[in-house]
């Protein structure tokens, strides 16, 4: 698992939003690697910086005050952040593509399904309209949609939520990307439809070997879909590692708290474990470890100094002073 090639490497990424009310540090000094053919889960609560990480990789900050202020995003030996907008366009949607959370709002309501998918093909491949349409029909069939020939001429409102998400997946996969970023692809869907979509993504991945970054707030979905996991809190990575290791023996108290606080099927407890307090306001971040005010195991040093990453080998790291027996990462 560990000796696979890294297809994407993010190094010390910081992305800030420069708003009228001050700077919002949405992603702070984030590093991770995505191995070829594997699935990395990024898990965290709302506002933890998951989606901004995805947007930073895609370079989608036009029209916002957001900007990557530091770091490198290395894809196939090239730093994406050093490329021109035109060069990034060539990669976006072709080599790296994305599925968004809301299948209703991210499809264009006045374009037919077939047109929306062929748009990506015509942009990135040197093919004509009719050939593009053939590809559209093929990819829609691959996603398991019924009556594909008529769906290409329909509009998004005529489809259900699950069907729209299948269309989104088709758009993202039609150019056979090397990396697929899925930002909460099943959050808006019902459990039975979620199961269908997860099943579909797993099958498509097996066939195409696409590497996936799977962003979600659901630990269950991570356990089911991912090989590696990155736990984010307050714009930072808190813990990384192989999913099986992290879920079996979480190192960071935040990961432990998250896992303990969700009701689990078949487990009946009188009271659920709770992480006390709330996520801190981004303008008034605590001085030391960002989780310290809510942490039941916090020590004096935690309130004073932010812990570095401690490395335990095999991709396992934890940003916690309790883990200082590991090798410190600069």
């Amino acid at each position: 698992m560990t000796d696979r090639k890294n297809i994407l490497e993010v190094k010390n990424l910081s992305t800030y939003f420069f708003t009228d009310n001050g700077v919002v540090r949405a992603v702070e000094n984030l590093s991770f690697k995505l191995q070829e053919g594997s699935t990395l889960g990024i898990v965290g609560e709302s506002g933890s910086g998951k989606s901004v990480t995805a947007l930073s990789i895609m370079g989608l900050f036009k029209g916002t005050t957001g900007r990557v202020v530091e770091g490198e995003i290395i894809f196939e030996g090239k730093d994406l952040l050093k490329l021109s907008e035109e060069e990034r366009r060539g990669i976006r949607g072709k080599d790296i593509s994305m599925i968004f959370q809301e299948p209703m709002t991210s499809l264009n309501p006045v374009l037919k399904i077939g047109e929306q998918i062929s748009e990506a093909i015509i942009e990135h491949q040197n093919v004509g309209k009719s050939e593009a349409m053939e590809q559209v029909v093929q990819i829609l069939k691959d996603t398991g949609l019924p009556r594909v020939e008529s769906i290409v001429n329909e509009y998004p409102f005529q489809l259900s939520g699950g069907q729209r998400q299948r269309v989104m997946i088709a758009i993202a996969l039609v150019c056979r990307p090397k990396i697929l970023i899925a930002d909460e692809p099943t959050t808006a869907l019902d459990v039975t439809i979620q199961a269908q979509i997860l099943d579909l993504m797993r099958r498509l991945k097996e066939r195409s070997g696409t590497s996936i970054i799977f962003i979600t707030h659901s630990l269950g979905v991570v356990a089911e879909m991912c090989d590696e996991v990155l736990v984010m809190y307050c714009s930072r990575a808190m813990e990384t590692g192989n999913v099986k290791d992290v879920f079996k023996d979480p190192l960071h108290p935040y990961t432990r708290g998250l896992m303990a606080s969700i009701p689990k099927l078949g487990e009946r407890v009188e009271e659920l474990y709770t992480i006390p307090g709330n996520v801190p306001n981004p303008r008034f971040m605590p001085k030391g470890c960002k989780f310290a005010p809510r942490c039941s195991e916090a020590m004096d040093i935690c309130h004073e100094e932010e812990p570095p990453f401690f490395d335990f080998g095999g991709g396992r790291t934890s940003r916690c002073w309790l883990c200082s027996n590991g090798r410190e990462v600069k």
Partner: protein
Amino acid sequence: MIQKNKSPAPLIVKDLKVYYPVRRGLFGKLQHVKALDGVSFEIAKGETFGVVGESGCGKSTLALAIAKLVKLTSGQIILDGEDISHYSASQMQPVRKKIQMIFQDPYASLNPRMTVRDIVAEPLIIHNVCKSSKEVDEKVIELLRQVGLDDYHANRYAHQFSGGQRQRIGIARSLALDPILVIADEPVSALDVSIQSQVLNLLSELKKHMHLTYLFIAHDLSVVEHISDRVGVMYLGEFVEVSDRDDLYNRPLHPYTQALLSAIPSIDPEEKKERIILEGNIPSPINAPSGCKFHPRCRHCMPICKELSPKKSVITDKHYVYCHLYTEKDKKE
């Protein structure tokens, strides 16, 4: 938990139907969305009755119907021994304080121009339960403390609070009038994982201290398992299975319940469970399938399922299911 004394059950619902009329186009045929199509159940005092189902199954309409916020097509709602099915708006006014609701979206259900004090005091003032404004203030502070907020929060506005705190404000408001029945419609689904457990614990604690009765509606089966004493599973406006919590989760009988349970991702990456993947989507409630409404997606579908809608099969006195698989079995035995 269930008391067998003379006081009537807080809620009895009999064969409740709510149809919404729809017309396609100006001269189109008048059709009906059968949001609730014959729902019957009872909630005992001090009990939490959980309702689960996918979006569009009628869960929220059920909440609105019981609170008489939509027009009933037919059926009966008996609240605390009083049949309120045909009450007019003015007749409902005094009854309203017995049913209170906690809503899903804490960002949309609190008036942004009112202070927390005014939000929580509003029901007290409308129903005129306090003698003086000083008494109102005292009651508000008491309620805020009960839900884990501080006194000084009373003078703030909703936007100054996080999602979890807003939901606490909504809960304080719903408890202001000592309701007989609290309807919680997806009260934690808009909250983050770490906040969800705080609110769930608060609801259980309040139930214990104030002897509340909940109708708890959610799509998340693990949340419903955690909080409920009894659970009803809905599909297209009908219950398909109703049971006490333990029996339903240990021994789900209806193929739909089985599929729902198997669809939940487990947080144990090593666990390999058999997944039943339901094909297709929930059919339109305008043209619901004939016979058993679940038959087009059911893996056990038999010829009879397409023709006849299944009757109630009583498995134990607390567990019943609407499915031909079990009526057949009864006949053979």
